[in-house]
């Protein structure tokens, strides 16, 4: 069942002459891991802001079409209502954390919602246990490493119990090791807790194998959409100029029928065939 529906979405920022998103149609199922990629300036960030209602509610501009998340149309509901269903993680963790301890950071959203204190306490404990970050509890977010910061940012959103997590290049500023640990966490959230994950990411060699489906955004429109292997093995993907993983290039050069997305599955295929 679709939990996110985007219908004929065209959006133009106030003061801009051409639309940043043009006629987007997209639906994401509950529990799906959906990957969005595309060249710089293709409209990925704008799309993320549409998903939790920041656009159009806080940005204005020309918003045509409809975005429906968990049954609610974003243009008819304030951001704080949508935010309880869609958690949005940003690129730069430094600007999304503003409290002096991890615990307070997690409490922030819950306090905003006006929840009773007992409930807040319960949710803090649950979230900390679920994310495995009890050792960070009393640390100040700005002292943490980039990877830990992103985990805290995710924890602070999960405490509000959203069904969907949208992440806008969450690992762009992280080193490979921290990036991988954040991305692995997303897989776990999907696997163990059935979260719907919508991830914007360039590093296809790490994330392609995690995704159920994938879309390439180009010049504000969806250029390709489908299973990751369909999309990444297509000739169009190469023409748009996204970073096709080496596994894909190698497999294509070898002329193998199978379409593996990770080194392991390529190796398995070759060994079995042999």
């Amino acid at each position: 069942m679709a939990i996110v529906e985007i219908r004929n979405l065209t959006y133009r920022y106030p003061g801009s002459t051409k639309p940043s998103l043009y006629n987007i149609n997209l639906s994401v199922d509950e529990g799906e891991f959906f990957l969005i990629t595309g060249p710089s300036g293709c409209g990925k960030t704008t799309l993320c802001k549409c998903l939790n209602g920041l656009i159009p509610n806080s940005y204005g501009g020309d918003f045509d079409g409809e975005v429906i998340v968990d049954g609610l149309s974003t243009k008819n509901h304030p951001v704080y209502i949508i935010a309880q269903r869609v958690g949005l993680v940003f690129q730069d963790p430094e600007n999304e954390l503003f409290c002096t301890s991890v615990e307070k950071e997690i409490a922030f959203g819950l306090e905003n919602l006006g929840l009773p204190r007992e409930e807040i306490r319960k949710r803090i404990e649950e979230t900390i246990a679920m994310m495995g970050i009890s050792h960070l509890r009393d640390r100040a977010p700005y002292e943490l490493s980039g990877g830990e910061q992103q985990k805290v940012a995710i924890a602070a959103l999960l405490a509000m119990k959203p069904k969907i997590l949208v992440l806008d290049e969450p690992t762009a500023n992280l080193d490979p090791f921290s990036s991988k640990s954040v991305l692995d966490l997303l897989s776990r959230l999907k696997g163990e807790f059935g979260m719907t994950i919508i991830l914007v990411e360039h590093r296809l060699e790490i994330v392609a194998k995690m995704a159920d489906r994938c879309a390439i955004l180009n010049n504000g429109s969806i250029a390709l959409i489908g299973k990751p292997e369909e999309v990444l093995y297509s000739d169009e993907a190469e023409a748009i100029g996204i970073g096709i993983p080496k596994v894909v290039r190698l497999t294509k050069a070898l002329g193998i029928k199978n379409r593996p997305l990770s080194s392991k599955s390529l190796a398995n295929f070759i060994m079995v065939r042999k």
Partner: protein
Amino acid sequence: MRVFSFQYTRKSSIIHKIDPRAKLVYLILFTILVVYYSNPIILFLIFLSSIPMVVLGKVIDRWKISIRSALFFIIFIFIFNFIGIFWSTGSLEYSIILSIAMSIRFIALISIFSAFFLTTSPEDLMQSMVQLKIPYEYALTFNMSMRFVPTLTRELQIIMDAQKSRGLELERGNILQKVRKYIPILVPLIINSFRRAEMIADAMESRAFGASKERTSFYTLTMGRKDYIFIIVSFISFFAILSLKLFFGIG
């Protein structure tokens, strides 16, 4: 580039644990004293009285940075005061004493404010503001501006490095030229601050900021025994120092 260091450092000390409202009482009372007196010796005494707080609060290193920067400013304060007072009164002795007093007053103020801000977390301060019925939005704005001071300082350093790498020499030239040289530093700093503010606003909204009129305060401050003792001690020392003038005519 470390100037006055008012940045809160998290430590566990008895002073850190005292309720911000109690410390606010201290801050106000002693600021009154500093402004009220102009006798250098008494001002120096007030300055000394702030040291136990710094020591108990384990923030001596940071406090030293503040005092050191204050000493630098004192040269100017002394010279300008001296010229001003000597110009209007013509009395050399009076001018010197008053200029010294002004300088010590400045140091004492810096010391008291450092002792307060170095041991009080901006968040607790915000919470006490809310509990003192200051609207949450104002308290939060204050908290945020404190929170992002280190971020901005770091950003300033990067920008200065970047422009120096492009051959900008801040040290050279007369005052007017020097001021102009700060344009390449200030423009990126200001533009980035706006951009950052926008991103923070987005992040806050995404965390349901403004959702409920009845925002829960999960962390509330309650005044305890030690807080009342602290307030009482502050009042006693306040009146003790005040009595020097009121009853003994000193100062």
